[in-house]
């Protein structure tokens, strides 16, 4: 039996940029191959972009994809129903992004019995998953913490706006940031409160935090929607320029806000590219290649200095990232 997967620390892993080098070019896909993608929700741009990645690569290779999502984030049984339906309908491979670490577990078992390839794609981790494609969640927070350490050498007070209580990505991102920045010794995390992925709640929380700590130097938010809410709170408090705000995900609004000089930065995990890599992984597995258990996808801290590099067409971004990975 497989050990329960921890995607952030699994040793049997490969960086996405190494796939071609180690396993050769993509094998051709058989005609009429049907692949299913099940994501958390479509109400968040991140997941829609992931689906675009699936479709763009599949389109190039003549593979058909069905991309579905639960009706809302947190609809665990609804997502299970969708995934089970795909097993029933005879899809050959499934790309699953589960709501929680456990809710799609039965699908793993049914798929195994039916000989269907399953790839767990970001961000909740099914412990029994044989294959996982995604970024290192912890690393999101670590990158932002390192930005503070480098750019605010004198240290200061920082605050964290967390995602939904108990969700893997939220827990890992928060922990990565907090641990790294506290180990530096010069920073103090004065608040770490839930924003529940919600703009309004994050706005209210940030207002309250700023009022109590007018000397705060920055926020780290577990996703971009919350970060954009915090940006407004910072503006309303008249502290723009004094308080930096970081998000996570790299949604297009975050880029716009960075370009406008409002949001300080975000950790982009390149959902379109991630989708392509996930699709590639599924096809390689389907073709019988023995890939490592985890395929790590790229992420990068985006700020006003570098955001232009990452704004081009997917191919260009891919090239930029490949170059960065080669260094």
């Amino acid at each position, binding site marked *: 039996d497989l050990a329960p997967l921890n995607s952030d620390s699994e040793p049997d892993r490969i960086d996405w940029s190494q796939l071609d080098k180690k396993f050769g070019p993509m094998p051709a896909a058989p005609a009429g191959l049907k692949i299913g993608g099940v994501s958390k929700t*479509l109400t968040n741009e991140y997941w829609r972009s992931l689906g675009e990645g699936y479709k763009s690569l599949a389109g190039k290779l003549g593979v058909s994809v*069905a991309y579905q999502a639960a009706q*809302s984030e947190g609809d665990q*049984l609804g997502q*299970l129903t969708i995934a089970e339906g795909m097993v029933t309908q005879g899809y050959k491979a499934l790309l699953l992004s589960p709501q*929680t670490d456990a809710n799609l577990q039965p699908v793993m078992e049914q798929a195994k019995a039916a000989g269907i390839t399953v790839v767990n794609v970001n961000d909740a981790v099914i412990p029994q998953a044989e294959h996982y494609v995604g970024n290192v969640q912890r690393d999101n927070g670590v990158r932002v913490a390192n930005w503070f350490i480098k750019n605010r050498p004198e240290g200061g007070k920082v605050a964290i706006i967390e995602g939904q209580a*108990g969700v893997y990505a939220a827990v890992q991102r928060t922990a990565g940031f907090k641990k790294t920045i506290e180990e530096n010794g010069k920073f103090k995390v004065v608040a770490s409160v839930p924003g529940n992925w919600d703009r309004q709640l994050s706005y209210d929380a940030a207002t309250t935090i700023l009022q109590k700590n007018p000397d705060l130097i920055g926020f780290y938010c577990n996703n971009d929607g919350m970060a954009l809410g915090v940006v407004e709170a910072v503006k309303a408090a008249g502290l723009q320029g004094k308080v930096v705000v970081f998000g996570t995900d790299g949604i297009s609004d975050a880029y716009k806000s960075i370009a406008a000089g409002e949001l300080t930065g975000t950790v982009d995990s390149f959902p379109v590219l991630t989708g392509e890599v996930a699709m590639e992984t599924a096809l390689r597995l389907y073709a019988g290649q023995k890939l490592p258990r985890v395929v790590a996808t790229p992420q990068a801290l985006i700020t006003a200095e570098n955001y232009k590099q990452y704004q081009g067409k997917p191919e260009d971004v891919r090239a930029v990232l490949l170059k960065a990975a080669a260094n």
Partner: protein
Amino acid sequence: MSDTNTATKSPAPSRAIAFSVRDAGTLIGLLIIFGIFAVLAPDFLTSRNLINILQQSSINACLALGMTLVIISGGIDLSVGPTAAVSAVITATLLVSGVPVPIALVGGLVIGALCGLVNGLLIAYAGLQPFIVTLGTLSTYRAVALIYTGGNPVLGVPQSFRALFNGSVAGIPNSVVMVAIVAVLAWVLLRKTPLGEYLMAVGGNEEAAYVAGVPIALTKIAAYVISGVLAALASMILIGRLGAAEPILGNLWELDAIAASAIGGASLMGGKGSVAGTLLGAIILGSMRNGLTLMNVQAFYQLLATGLIILVAMMIDRVTRGRG
């Protein structure tokens, strides 16, 4: 005077058969939905998929049966999801720490009963409104589950426990069989026992029930305890299937359960509701999800369809049953 006679006779048959006119309305709604999906999604009517629908509806049906009893008593239980979560994480912890399966199972059900008991006591003795009490415990129980586990899932539920819920009898999944048994028990409770009459009476006219000597507080408490136990049972079915218990399990379950009861004819004013109707309501919701997925309908349109079908189901019901 002749009016009086016809009026006297017409309602009589409804008593003999368990399946009322109201339930027939729900059944017609279900058949229409089945008909539509059968045409639009070729795989829909395969026996494998039908069993699938039953299995997928079983958790909601289990919750909705408890919810129906609570609704009949004139209350509502918004805390079923978090109750399920608390009981799931505790059962799983017990199992993982090596406690024998039957003890862990009973332990989990007792936790569910305790959650229900707290709701019931606050409602029956402190005299608070059910909606608000269970809104408060919705947050409280969820917090308990999260704090207990530190937010982490409890993994490694042993195979012996899972087998209990994942096996099947003559091709019918165990979970479906269990819910069927629960349904029969609920039906007996409602139709044959004094408690069933008390629930109807308390929901139908609390003052009259009080004056008649019905133990109002006990009746209400019983409803919430049963709802808690069934939420716990639903969570067992789920962790049996998933092999893990998460503290965030059961999110939004209350809305599905209420929708199933209401589609099945329960009135949130109390005093009205049926076991058969509730089962049909749960199957309507389950088959809708299943069918929309088979048709590969995009999430936003699935949401739209969910909303519209709830409205249409209620309207079909209204028409088949007439006003009132």
